[in-house]
């Protein structure tokens, strides 16, 4: 299983140069780039851990690549993503999001079905890895 979240998860893994180019696109648009990591890749896990604050005043995407690699040193067995925040009125949210690091093994998710009244069903999606405690998942 390959986690398909983000803008580029159907492309071959991004190189550091690819990351720099995409981050520079964000910076040139006036967006603040940030790095986040997690070992709980549930599609509705909104809040990955922040690797520092969004880099609001950074003009050079090389600094983003540097932070990605620093993050990899500590969390290289987890998922790492790059985000771009747009503070423009009327948006004030994320403009870009792409995964730049993933575990070597991605066990994926199971669907838990709770059969309720009639033929109704309550669905839950559960990460196989996240059954283990935080820090012991990948």
């Amino acid at each position, binding site marked *: *299983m390959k*986690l*398909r*979240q983000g*803008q*580029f*998860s*159907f*492309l*071959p893994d991004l190189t550091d140069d*690819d990351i720099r*180019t*995409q981050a520079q*696109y964000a910076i040139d648009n006036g967006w603040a780039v940030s790095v986040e990591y997690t070992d709980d*890749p*549930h*599609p*509705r896990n*909104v809040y990955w851990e922040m690797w520092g604050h969004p880099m609001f005043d950074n003009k050079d995407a090389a600094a983003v690549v540097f932070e990605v690699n620093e993050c990899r040193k500590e969390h290289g067995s987890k998922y790492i993503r790059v*985000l*771009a925040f747009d503070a423009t*009125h*009327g*948006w*004030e*949210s*994320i*403009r*870009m*999001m*792409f995964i730049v690091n993933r575990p070597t093994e991605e066990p*994926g*998710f*199971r*669907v838990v079905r709770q059969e309720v009244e009639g*033929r*109704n*069903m*309550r*669905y839950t*999606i559960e990460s196989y890895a996240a059954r283990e405690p935080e820090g012991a998942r990948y």
Partner: protein
Amino acid sequence: MKDEVRTETDLKKRYSAGVMKYANMGYWEPDYQPKDTDVLTMFRITPQDGVDAIEAAAAVAGESSTATWTVVWTDRLTACEKYRAKAYRVDPVPNSPGEYFAYIAYDLDLFEPGSISNLTASIIGNVFGFKPLKALRLEDMRFPVAYVKTFQGPATGIVVERERLNAYGRPLLGATVKPKLGLSGRNYGRVVYEALAGGLDFTKDDENINSQPFMHWRDRFLYCMEAVNRASAATGEVKGTYLNVTAGTMEEMYERAEFAKSLGSVIIMIDLVIGYTAIQSMAKWARANDMILHLHRAGHSTYTRQRSHGVSFRVIAKWMRLAGVDHLHAGTVVGKLEGDPATTKGYYDIFREEYNPTALENGIFFDQDWASLNKMMPVASGGIHAGQMHQLLTYLGEDVVLQFGGGTIGHPHGIQAGATANRVALEAMVFARNSGRDIWNEGEDILRDAARTCTPLKQALDTWKGVTFDYASTDAPDFAPTPEVSM
């Protein structure tokens, strides 16, 4: 155009019984300065032979506000000056003899707050069959901020839709399940699963999929949600399928919407043919229930397509943004359905911008401030495929749902392969654009490069190579684009 026709100022003459020209009754005011609080309209009028254009414009103003065919003394019991709509400008249409653009202003008090039905009953309720006109088309409207603020607007909006889906920085991908009629619920869900697992964000019921003998609605909802959840687990993404809740009564629509919610669907769908009040009701329901609301514009071409008569789609788009839907089909430019590039750009701007400046070359005749109303996601569907990705991204931008129905399900190696081809083509094109490449000119190279590591994309490109729908548009703008704004 101006002429000597003037409102009769001698009140005794003005209100003596009998028939009087509309232009003399006060519906033609060439010196009128529209107020910021007025609702403005622009109609294309084609008067019958021998009918003066200004009198025709005044008649449209009259019949869409206070007038009837004869003078009535009961006008004098009211502040009738205020309630009369005022035609204030009439221009000949460029290159179209016999057609005129008529600008009309309406006082805000003529309209009930927050009701598209009331607005449209006034503006298009009575005038379109008016005998002195050969044809009439409502081209554009301007709503004052005070009136915009009486509407909820899109239940979710583009930004929150993306936050809920956890999908940023690229167009969303969808497909309409085909064949649209005849599949059983179980088989239907199979198509949903394959398309979503292959890489699409959404699948979609078609406009006429409601509850028929071959598939009743509960069955469809149950199988579709099994497919959605399986696909979500297979990819780790949030997935959705537009469950069409269109039904014969509001009670049934609410029942279907509630069931979709209980199964965990992120999105439901309605058809334009349910009517404006029903659309507004469902928009309120969607806001109250954290649901994205997709609107299929079923039936619109009956009145939007012909240039001389009906209602322009840009007006329908404005009404729907006020009414509060999140998704609405708006054309593809390159696909099989009607859509000139400049006109389509005008529609997309109405959906997605906070402020629309007048842009005659895109068919936008008024400045429109949307007063922070949510943005509406345009949906492009009908005869598009992966090989057009560079054109689609250039014309339509990033905040759009690209729907490849045939272009997914018709893939020679199956639905998942079709979906993957589309997703890879999309991601490769966004990646290339962000990297500074000229996707308009290098698009085919970019796709071919991406196909080297993606066999399904190679098969898609080979299958639909050179498929285009290159017909002249029946609804192009009347004003030629200037070089600075042409695309």
